[in-house]
């Protein structure tokens, strides 16, 4: 069977061999967690607790700050010790709630639904909303908003994103291998909420064992398909995945998947949805890949939200060399962070560490107009021209060249033979244009 894909893209070495075979391990319950109030796209959550309050694991400690927002839950039991600015996995500092654990990990009462597949769509949505689930692939868009499209845009297909095209990351891979049944149940629940007839699970070709397993498990399902996708970056970007799996093109200039009747969810999200619906269990833990060239024992860890990165690294026996660079997320789209004090958030899929030599970036040279960036751009933009216009602050032309359609995958900067940091220039352009459009 021919593998499906999209035009453009690059082929970085997938580097998954470091942590591919490490089964998911439970990280010991941390003594202290820091839960940022903004782990998602949209309004930050509003705290419901005050300093000194006792909380149980899974207790709601912050409510949504608007429609596009999610609640937050305590990930360990203990006492609220601080509500202040803390480091955030994106590198900034933001308001967060610190909980000092009592070591008991005393859960709120969980629940078990036997016929969870028979629940009504509204009840499923309600439980997803209560559990505080947002997209777990990285961007962190609130799941409830994604599955509540306006009535004029019906959804017929739910795509599960099991591509994991970022090098090094293996969290989704391990999850699909170990919790395949649960993920398929999660997909069924998601399909029910939006009344979709088709379900697609998109998996990249470098995970043949998962493709095989998923195909076996869905062999009897009429409406669920498993699609093998070509090994290419950014295969897991929403629009590229939709095109590869369904040949539908999401319109440019602010188009959303719902415009082509599709919803895309990460496999981690599907697993969280399953747990939320069946056990009413809030999203308080996730799988994080700890990897990179200098980690002694790369691992996939089941980690409570809010655990500091340094504890994850400690559990992996530290590093073999001095740390040169720390990345939260994948190496292509993740955030370089200055230290290991930031906590795991709902969207943190990985913690990657590299040595000083790998961290060093080459000096920028002039553009030689080779067009490599144009060839690889999955959105059919001209990255070199956008970057040039940003450099000379011509915002009108920047916008005209479609800077807002950029998905910031970084393919252009990856191939540039002149080491131009195209994505950083384009990012400034995006920021300026959205500032301009807002005012």
């Amino acid at each position, binding site marked *: 069977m021919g593998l499906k894909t999209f035009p453009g893209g690059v082929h970085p070495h997938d580097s998954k061999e470091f942590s591919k075979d490490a089964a998911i391990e439970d990280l010991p319950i941390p003594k202290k967690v820091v839960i940022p109030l903004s782990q998602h796209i949209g309004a930050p959550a509003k705290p419901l607790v005050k300093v000194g309050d006792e909380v149980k694991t899974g207790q709601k400690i912050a409510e949504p700050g608007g429609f596009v927002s999610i609640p937050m839950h305590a990930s360990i039991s203990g006492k609220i010790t601080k509500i202040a600015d803390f480091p955030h996995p994106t*590198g*900034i*500092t933001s308001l967060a709630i610190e909980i000092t654990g009592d070591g008991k990990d005393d859960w709120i009462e969980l629940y078990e639904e036997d016929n969870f597949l028979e629940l009504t769509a509204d009840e499923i949505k309600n439980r997803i909303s209560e559990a505080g689930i947002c997209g777990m692939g990285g961007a962190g868009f609130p799941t409830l908003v994604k599955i509540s499209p306006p009535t004029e845009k019906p959804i017929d297909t739910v795509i599960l994103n099991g591509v994991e095209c970022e090098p090094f990351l293996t969290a989704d891979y391990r999850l699909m291998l170990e919790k395949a049944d649960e993920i398929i149940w999660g997909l069924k629940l998601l399909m029910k909420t939006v009344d979709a007839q088709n379900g697609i699970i998109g998996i990249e070709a470098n995970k043949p064992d998962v493709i095989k397993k998923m195909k076996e498990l869905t062999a009897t399902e009429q409406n669920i398909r498993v699609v093998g996708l070509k090994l290419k970056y950014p295969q897991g970007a929403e629009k590229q995945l939709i095109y590869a799996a369904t040949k539908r093109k999401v319109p440019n200039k602010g188009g959303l998947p719902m415009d082509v009747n599709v919803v895309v969810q990460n496999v981690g999200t599907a697993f969280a949805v399953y747990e939320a619906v069946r056990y009413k269990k809030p999203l308080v833990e996730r799988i994080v890949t700890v990897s990179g060239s200098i980690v002694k024992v790369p691992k996939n860890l089941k980690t409570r939200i809010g655990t500091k990165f340094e504890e994850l690294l400690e559990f992996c026996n530290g590093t073999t060399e001095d740390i040169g660079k720390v990345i939260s997320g994948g190496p292509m789209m993740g*955030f*370089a*962070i*200055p*230290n290991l004090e930031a906590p795991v958030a709902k969207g943190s899929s990985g913690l990657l560490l590299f040595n000083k030599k790998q961290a*060093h*970036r080459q000096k*920028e040279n002039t553009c030689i107009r080779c067009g490599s960036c144009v060839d690889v751009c999955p959105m059919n933009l001209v990255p070199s021209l956008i970057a040039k216009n940003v450099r000379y602050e011509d915002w009108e032309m920047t916008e005209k060249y479609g800077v807002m359609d950029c998905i910031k995958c970084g393919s252009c900067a990856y191939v540039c033979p002149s080491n131009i*940091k195209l994505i*950083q*220039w384009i*990012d*400034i352009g995006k*920021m300026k244009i959205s500032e301009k459009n807002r005012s």
Partner: protein
Amino acid sequence: MIIVYSVATLGILGLIYGLGLAYASRKFHVEVDPKIEKITEILPQANCGACGYPGCSAYAEAIVNNGVDINKCAPGGSAVLGQISKIMGVEATATERKVALIHCQSGGSNNTFFRYKYEGIPTCKAAVQLSNGPNLCNYGCVFQNDCLEACNFDAIHLDENGMRIIDKEKCTSCGACVKACPRDLIELVPVKKRVHVLCSSQDKGAVARPACGNKTACIGCGLCVKKCPVDAITLNNNLAVINYEKCINCGQCADVCPTAAIFDPLKEVRAKKKAEAKAKAEAAKKKVEAAKQKAAEDKE
């Protein structure tokens, strides 16, 4: 023969077009006030935009046609103002000359503490995006030279420590650097004012002071606010701010500032004078005492 023909044809064509152009220039003549041209020539032609108009000629037009104030050209200063006022026959007082001032004395890129090494694109706009900027202070200069590049008058330089220094003589207060700085560190201040707060940190003292490479962060203690005789200083978000309209250049705030965040070039001179006066007084006192003692001894 062919030469004659071609010369004649071209000559006739030239004559026809010439007449056409002459007619058009009469018929479609646009009245341009000669004052506009004159004023445009006088203006410094830097097209810096400090007057609020797109370029010098646009400002000249606005003066002549719309009667806009003639004192808006900051780079031109009083010389240009005098010439324009002659042409326009309007009296105008020069606005107070201002210069740009950087509210940060981080110690320069050689002395500041960094949380990481920035190797991204060389612009401040990008550097402040990445984890609140490479230096430990969340409010200070990030050393990528956006202000230097924005300056049309070569008035901003680097000193040997990598600090940005503004040349007061060359600065025309056009405000280009003020707009360029993503951290809003630069302000236009009256050139006559001598005492400035050289810090923009809104962090509390315990955070701000160790983060500053020069250890001269404003810690928001409020001593200057209490000391100021004319109530010109206010404390906003742990940061002292001087109201230049009220400030009388006395420098008492700089004297009491425990971290030297408030800078006064005369502070040392004043301190020296004070010390000298004190020494003198003490010497005089000793003399008197010695004399008394001597007198007492003599009596004995």
